[in-house]
């Protein structure tokens, strides 16, 4: 357990991407950054740049237009990286399931690590999801348990 592995679970920088969501989950994701929930106390910072991010937070179902963008963003994130699907739509397609333009959940395109259900997902659930992702990351890099 080196200092780098220890630091990796203490400073996850998130990249927030909205597919074709109704923006309900996006508002909840941004609510996590407000003084009430303040995820920065865990070291989380919302990055606007995929090259600086560690965790890709995706909301909304994947459609044919955004699939390409999503893959591109995922490929630009340096390893080790995690993907969190936030909301019912990002997890399975939700109410948009079987629409003519919808591929389905994020897992149709990317390997998803954590699913956060809910419509819209509550900020507490999103924070739980990030913590779960960090536990998974710590197992992957060999820090924990």
């Amino acid at each position: 357990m080196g200092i780098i592995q220890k630091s990796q679970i203490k400073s996850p920088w998130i990249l927030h991407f909205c597919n074709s969501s109704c923006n309900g989950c996006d508002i909840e994701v941004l609510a996590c950054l407000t003084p009430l929930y303040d995820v920065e106390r865990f070291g989380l910072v919302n990055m606007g740049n995929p090259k600086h991010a560690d965790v890709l937070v995706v909301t909304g179902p994947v459609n044919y237009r955004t699939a390409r963008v999503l893959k591109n963003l995922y490929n630009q994130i340096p390893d080790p990286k995690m993907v969190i699907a936030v909301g019912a739509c990002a997890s399975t397609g939700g109410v948009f399931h079987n629409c003519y333009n919808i591929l389905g959940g994020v897992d149709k395109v990317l390997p998803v690590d954590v699913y956060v259900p809910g419509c819209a997902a509550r900020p507490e659930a999103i924070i739980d999801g990030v913590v779960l992702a960090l536990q998974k990351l710590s197992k992957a890099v060999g820090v924990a348990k």
Partner: protein
Amino acid sequence: MSDQVLNQVLIAIIAIIVAPFIGGLLAGIDRKLTARLQGRYGPPILQPFYDFFKLLGKSKIATTRTQFIWLISYLVFMITCLVFLVLQQDLLLLVFLLGFAGISFVLAGFSTKSPYSHFGANRELMQILSYEPILLLFALAVYAQNGSFMISTIMENSTPLLASLWPVFIAVLVALTIKMRKSPFDIATSHHGHQELVKGIMTEISGPYYALVTLTEWYELVLVLGLIALFWSNPLWVGILIALAAFILELLIDNINARLTGGLMVRICWAAALVLCVLNILYIYFMRGVA
């Protein structure tokens, strides 16, 4: 004679090792204090170190090899500046080296093909255009006061520089805001996850290279605060207290200000800070002429 040389080498090595720890801690205090000012709990004080080591562990995505070389030279020139400061060498040469360090960073931004990176590099050039004359006139004002560019002369002088150079001090505070990349002058890139033009000049710098830039910024912070401490160098602890007070003041200014446009930044710096410097130097020579 060789004892003295050994002593100086030792001082330089200690400064190179200790400076990043001080810079990182100051960055941690920055993030904590900013969070408290915004009514948040904030990350732990050691958060910048976690970020630094995490970035070291990320995989390398280099767009060009040239960029890496310029980033290394940015770090090396910054360390050289710090060594110049702790060994009490020539202030004018220090300012020139600092200028070249800044230019290396700009060239790192220009060496990729990303338009965001180019935008950031152009804006960084604008920042250099704003603060570089202030630092240069600071060195000239020190010369006008002491008759020497050597920092060792400043250290020997019993009357503090602040007494006669307080207008220059105000101008250097403006330069500190630009150097720390704080609002209202954070136009090239900024901290705290602000997003404008993706990440400005930092857009194409990722993983271990980002860690390298973070390290350089810590050296830079310590260096600029050290330059401010020179204003009250005898006794030095007063100067260090003044530098820390200036640091806290910058954080306050950062949190109560929005970002200005680049043109406005250059205008404010030249119209206010530069005029203060020039008037200060003219006044010193005028008083000497009268006496």
